[in-house]
């Protein structure tokens, strides 16, 4: 109840600030979407020249692509801590957060939340629906529920990995440049992992499990037996990584001493 009212207040503030500059807001939403759609463009152009990518058809690829966008949108909406080090550690804003009663991570999430990125999720859902319509796969009554479970698992994986990376700021004063690196790696996850070599496949499955934010969970609905077993692991991997992220974060917060200025 307490957190609901905080959420509402933050959300109102968000709307007020964004609606002050409506044109900027619109441009940002559109360009963000276009950034993501460049990869869609890649898939469409490539399939003008071939009809299978490592055994996957264009609609299967589009389905994975659409799925990939859904948890990504939810993640950027709530758990995007991209500029944490600069804003909260270097400028000392973390002091302000820690003096307040609500849990520090909740405050950070609410301060940085960006519901506009849910447009990306919606677009992804439409692309996925379009691809599904063209695919000849069975539809079970439990599919919508499984989808929710998968998306939740994927969001937790994003959350866990990025909270873990972000909490490194508590242990090292200088920026590590690790976040943009991870961000680039996550894009591997939207293509079938079988096309990569063993090292990358292993990394994407167990170390930085970005195969679980795209190809594995999506293949559950595509009746592809090669990765269906992995698909069901998505929520488990999500919970494990999110827990690790939170634990390391809390250790980090305890070590935090302030920037001193």
């Amino acid at each position, binding site marked *: 109840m307490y957190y609901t009212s905080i959420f509402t207040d933050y959300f109102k503030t968000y709307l007020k600030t964004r609606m002050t500059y409506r044109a900027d807001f619109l441009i940002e939403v559109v360009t963000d979407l276009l950034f993501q759609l460049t990869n869609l463009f890649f898939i469409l152009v490539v399939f003008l020249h071939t009809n299978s990518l490592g055994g996957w058809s264009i609609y299967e690829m589009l389905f994975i692509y659409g799925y990939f966008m859904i948890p990504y949108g939810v993640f950027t909406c709530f758990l995007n801590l991209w500029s944490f080090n600069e804003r909260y550690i270097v400028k000392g804003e973390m002091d302000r957060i820690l003096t307040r009663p609500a849990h520090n991570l909740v405050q950070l999430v609410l301060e940085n939340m960006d519901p506009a990125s849910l447009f990306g999720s919606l677009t992804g859902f439409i692309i996925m629906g379009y691809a599904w319509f063209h695919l000849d796969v069975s539809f079970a009554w439990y599919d919508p529920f499984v989808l929710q479970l998968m998306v939740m698992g994927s969001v937790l994986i994003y959350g866990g990995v990025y909270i873990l990376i972000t909490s490194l700021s508590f242990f090292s004063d200088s920026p590590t440049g690790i976040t*943009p690196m991870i961000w680039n790696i996550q894009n591997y996850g939207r293509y079938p992992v079988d096309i990569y070599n063993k090292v990358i496949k292993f990394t994407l499955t167990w170390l930085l499990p970005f195969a679980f934010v795209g190809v594995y969970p999506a293949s559950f609905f595509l009746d592809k037996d090669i990765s269906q077993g992995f698909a069901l692991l998505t929520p488990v991997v999500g919970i494990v990584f999110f827990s690790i992220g939170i634990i390391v974060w809390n250790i980090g917060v305890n070590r935090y001493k302030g920037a001193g200025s």
Partner: protein
Amino acid sequence: MLPMFSAYIDMIRIRFLMMLAYRVNYYSGIIIYAINIGAYYFLWKAIYGANETLGEFTVLQMTTYVAVSWMARAFYFNNLDREIANEIKDGSVAVQLTKPYPYLIFKMMQGLGEGLFRLLLFSVPGMVIVTLIFQIELPTQFDVWLIFMVMIFFSFLINSQINLLTGMFAFFVENNEGLMRFKRIAVDLFSGLIIPISFFPGWAKGVLEWLPFQAITYLPASVFTRRVVGDAIYNAFIVQVIWFLFLSIPIYVIWKMARRRLVVQGG
């Protein structure tokens, strides 16, 4: 002329040293490029599958194209548009205008310092590593390397010119963030970095041939992968030179107009 020239050399040198000071960005940058090259390498391998050629490219040409395009990008890429827009927004451009050198050339020199840094400490070692790990084919003739070097210098010029134009737009509108983002997407997509232009459908190819973006990645990378040989190399180079000269005109005109209407808020 001569003292001016040494001033330019210093601008390049200072930016070069500045880049050296921020080494963290350098290390993570190398890894990011390696990741991108690796991802596209395997992706294209899978796309080719059993096919020998696609979109006028052989597999070997394609993997070479991917590697060399990203390495060239390390050299020509810069954030001049953002730097200029920020200086216009915070008013510091007014101070820059009082300096005894042309502001836009000063910015270009800074961009060149940044590019040279990445070329020497990043693209060259990166290319060696990529050659060892992946199957790619480097040109064996010395003159191909030479013309390629000249061509990526023009890639830098044209890309920077486009950045100058996008950045200067901040003189006329209060927020050119959207334009800068569109530009970035356009350069990555239409320059042939993500997909070579020969893969595009016919109508799109026709349009892109009349835009400056192909001169940034597609033309030099085509020369490097030996898809373009003989006299056609000079044609590709002339296209770059023409775009360089042509883009200078709007830059000059807009700069003249912008200086007249510059209003520094607060300063």
